[in-house]
């Protein structure tokens, strides 16, 4: 249920933004979520509807973009995507899952996606010296609002 705290932080960030810019209403919020965290967008949408109540963002349209991840091995040059990575990550994180109050087990990457460096090696050569093309967790891409 990490979706809730992530969404909470987005609601608060855009609220602060509205205050700073003197916006009465936020009409549209576009966020980018790293595919690695496997945050569920429908939970985030629901959380946003509830958490934004009573804030300037309450009727805002929320657009969630999932940014795809690619890995490039510095050692052998191999490039791979999340689908391939997940085959290794799932096994490697299996003893490290985090259980929430609803009994759901989440991998640590759900909370800290960049911990992927602890749970993944290059599928071709086994090196951990790889680059991630999008090293971020969640970010707000744009916010639109009205002064009146």
């Amino acid at each position, binding site marked *: 249920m990490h979706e809730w705290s992530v969404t909470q*932080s987005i609601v*608060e960030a855009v609220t602060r933004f509205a205050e700073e810019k003197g916006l009465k209403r936020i009409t549209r919020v576009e966020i980018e979520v790293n595919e690695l965290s496997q945050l569920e967008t429908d939970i985030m949408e629901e959380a946003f509807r509830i958490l934004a109540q009573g804030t300037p963002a309450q009727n805002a349209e929320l657009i969630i973009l999932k940014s795809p991840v690619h890995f490039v091995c510095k050692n052998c040059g191999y490039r791979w995507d999340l689908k391939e990575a997940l085959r290794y990550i799932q096994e490697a994180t299996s003893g490290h899952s*985090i*259980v*929430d109050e609803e009994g759901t087990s989440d991998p640590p990457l759900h909370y*800290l996606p*960049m911990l992927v460096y602890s749970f993944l090696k290059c599928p071709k050569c086994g090196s951990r010296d790889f680059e991630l093309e999008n090293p971020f967790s969640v970010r707000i891409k744009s*916010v639109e609002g009205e002064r009146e």
Partner: protein
Amino acid sequence: MSLQVEPWEVLAEKRLSEIGETLLVGSGKGGVGKSVVSAALALALAKKGYKVGLFDLDVHGPSIPAILGIKNVRLTGSRRGLEPVPHRGMKVMSLAFLVGDNPLPLKGAAKTEVVEDIISNTDWGSLDYLVVDLPPGTGDEMLLSTRIFRRHTHRFLVVATPSIIALSVVKRLVSLLRDEKIRIAGIVENMATLPGGAPHPGSQLLEKYAETENLRVLAKIPFDETLEEVLLKGAGLENAPRFWHAVEGLAESLTGT
């Protein structure tokens, strides 16, 4: 329109606003005893009855769980974030709880991201003191942590050994902290005696430096040859009596109680 406030920062701010004071334990140099001092200080504060959190922010070699003998942790989460692990009356969070014994070969941007995520996701609740074991050096991750914590009540404890080699590193750290407007509580002189108990020849040098910089020497922690064995046995840091006694003194001088 683009955004100045980042979501993780907003969340971090909110969490830190519930913390009475953050005690940042750092040093320019590695291996001077930041982690054992952080762990013992947190424990000493908890024993005094304060609500204490211990935050292992060392992204290179998180070692707090090993020092405290915390094993086989199953972290739990909630809608509010990651739950720190209860241990002997305090709350503890470490990256080691998330990755176990896996290597943590983090790079530039990913490293900062990990620090941001763990600061913003750990749900401490309200605390009197949060003791932070900072990563060694003055790299991105150390600067990022201090930048967040300095907006709230905080003090920085500079851990240093009396070695002449360490002194120049301490000087650079102190001048950096002053530039960054971080409140320095003073210097914690660790391994202030030689193994065997004789005073360290460099001790006076460190004291003199502290005096010229108007810094307090908060504690002189002797070399305690029983410490390694205590750690090995997982016996609790109180069982290294000379080390423990000095850290208790440090806790007293910080709290005034």
